[in-house]
């Protein structure tokens, strides 16, 4: 026998905690601490909203109030900044989604020399610090076209990298596209435009929807690129940053409460939808199997 042969530990009694249970305990503690770390700041920030104190803190507690919600609601500058952010987000969708689709089609369906280099250029903004994108966009459009900082410039700056995210989404979906569907449509007499409209776009619709959602969310929360390109316009993120810098009242917490609340609701909604989808898919499979068995039998 070599040293490799297994020695047999003498074990007969059941330990009161098995090693698996100890491990599970550690895992549980680790998970609990991690999620505490994730959520404590957000929960604290939300709770502060209800303290009747001019500075955002929970201690000392000065009594329950809802006035910070009213304060936030009546803040006209905030509403203006929200509108500006929505406008920018809208135009980013309008630009980034078609550009991303063009990039994805360019990569998957055309054969052009230097294609991989062009691909590298198109995805490079994903790995570029936002401040660099912002500064370079400003320099380019200001010195060459005399378009200085303003919200339209933020749209261009944000589009440069958000279009890359859209392209990646489209490429993932395109990789699973069955091209014979297009061939079948052409074979049945459809024009290229009809094929695009009736075959391609319906197939891509989920990807287009998620790309548009992602584009809007990315734009809405962008700070770094916007900082350099926004000029004197104010987006919601700029508004929040300004408020924090100048020392805010808990009316900002009220805004945070609403935004975090929406996020949680959206997350729960998404998970419920996902589970329903999974269950529906399972039910469909079961029904199909049952139908098959029924047809096989008597």
């Amino acid at each position: 026998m070599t040293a490799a042969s297994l020695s047999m530990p003498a074990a007969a009694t059941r330990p009161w905690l098995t090693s698996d249970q100890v491990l599970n305990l550690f895992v549980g503690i680790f998970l609990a601490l991690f999620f505490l770390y994730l959520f404590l700041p957000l929960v604290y920030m939300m709770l502060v909203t209800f303290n009747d104190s001019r500075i955002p803190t929970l201690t000392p507690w000065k009594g329950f109030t809802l006035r910070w919600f009213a304060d936030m609601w009546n803040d006209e500058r905030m509403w203006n900044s929200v509108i500006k952010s929505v406008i920018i987000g809208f135009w980013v969708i309008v630009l980034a989604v078609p550009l991303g689709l063009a990039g994805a089609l360019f990569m998957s369906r055309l054969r052009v020399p230097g294609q991989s280099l062009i691909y590298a250029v198109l995805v490079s903004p994903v790995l570029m610090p936002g401040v660099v994108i912002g500064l370079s966009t400003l320099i380019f459009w200001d010195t060459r076209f005399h378009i200085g900082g303003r919200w339209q410039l933020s749209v261009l700056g944000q589009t440069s990298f958000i279009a890359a995210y859209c392209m990646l989404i489209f490429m993932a979906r395109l990789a699973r596209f069955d091209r014979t569907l297009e061939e079948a449509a052409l074979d049945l007499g459809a024009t290229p435009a009809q094929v695009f409209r009736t075959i391609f776009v319906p197939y891509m619709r989920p990807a287009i929807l998620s790309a548009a959602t992602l584009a809007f969310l990315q734009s809405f929360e962008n700070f770094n690129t916007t900082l350099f390109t926004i000029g004197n316009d104010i987006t919601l993120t700029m508004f929040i940053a300004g408020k924090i810098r100048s020392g805010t009242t808990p009316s900002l917490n009220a805004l945070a409460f609403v935004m975090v609340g929406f996020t949680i609701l959206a997350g729960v909604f998404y998970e419920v939808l996902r589970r329903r989808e999974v269950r529906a898919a399972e039910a469909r499979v079961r029904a199909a199997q049952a139908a098959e068995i029924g047809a096989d039998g008597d």
Partner: protein
Amino acid sequence: MANDLELIDVVKKFGDFTAVHGVTVTMPQGEFFSFLGPSGCGKTTILRMISGFIDPSAGVIRLGGRDLNGIGPNKRPTALIFQNLALFPLMSVADNIGYGLMVRGVGKTERRQVVDRMLELIALKGYGDKRIDELSGGQKQRVAIARALAVEPKVLLLDEPLSALDLKLRQHMRQELRALQRRTGVTFIYITHDQGEALAMSDRVAVMSQGRIEQIGTSTEIYNSPQTAFVAAFVGENNAIGGKVTAAEYGYGAIDTPFGRLRAANPRGMKPGEEAVLFVRPERVHLAGQNGANGSDNALESQVLDGVFEGPVANILLANQGDARPITVTLTNDGATPRVSRGERRRVAFSPDDAILLPPYGAAHGAGGPA
């Protein structure tokens, strides 16, 4: 002797679901033992309990008389061959085989010796530096076995390792596995849903259904003398004819069926009045007059429904007019096979010694079932 593996009343529950109901079996050292059953019968659960990945909810697993409870899979003298082999793709063949030794701190030189010996054992000498993805399916199979044997396990557990191979290779690997087991003398515990594999390789087979062992025996016993309706129906082809027992004496019984009264062996001692199923293998049924059906044989009047030629054998399906399930007769293609045509009326016959009476499937687990 020294390293007999015993499972005593082993139970495994997952929540409300009981995957294994009180399984008791002893596997002597050096045996090639198979668990055979359809998917979901609990055989994989048993394997994972023996290897230590999951703990039994109740019962004891002993190796050489010592309780394995509380010993993790990395400390157990068992080695598992995974269904998908789970070879480490980022390591060479030699590193895969030597892995178990390396993690035990065995020195490089000794490790190389063992690896070389193993490569020789599996006839892959000189393949040590190859990458896993350079190997063929059968070679991967053998490397997985070598990797498990390198740690000198007392028991080798195999989880349907041949299922990914094509038919020819699978049949070849059966012989190879059997030979390897004889050469090494290690206990092999093999789980499979493929009865051909189980019957061809094993010293003994345990047929499982719904978390219970239906029967343990040699391949011949399992095939020729099934003890439950499940085993009779699951292992091999079998004609099943249901009916009511009318007489039982001297180890034989008579049963009234849509084909009339038939006689068969009655090892379970079924009593008159009980529902029973008569099983008879298609190759034990013959066309009357063919091999001199004698007077004590069961004879059935029937009509030919269809004939299926399969090369070495031909299967003929016959039915009594009415609702009875068709009976299959398998004829060997020995040159003297009679011609039959569809719609023709033929008498078929079989000896009562070739047929067996068993309680219907599901009745066996009822209270007070026959021992």
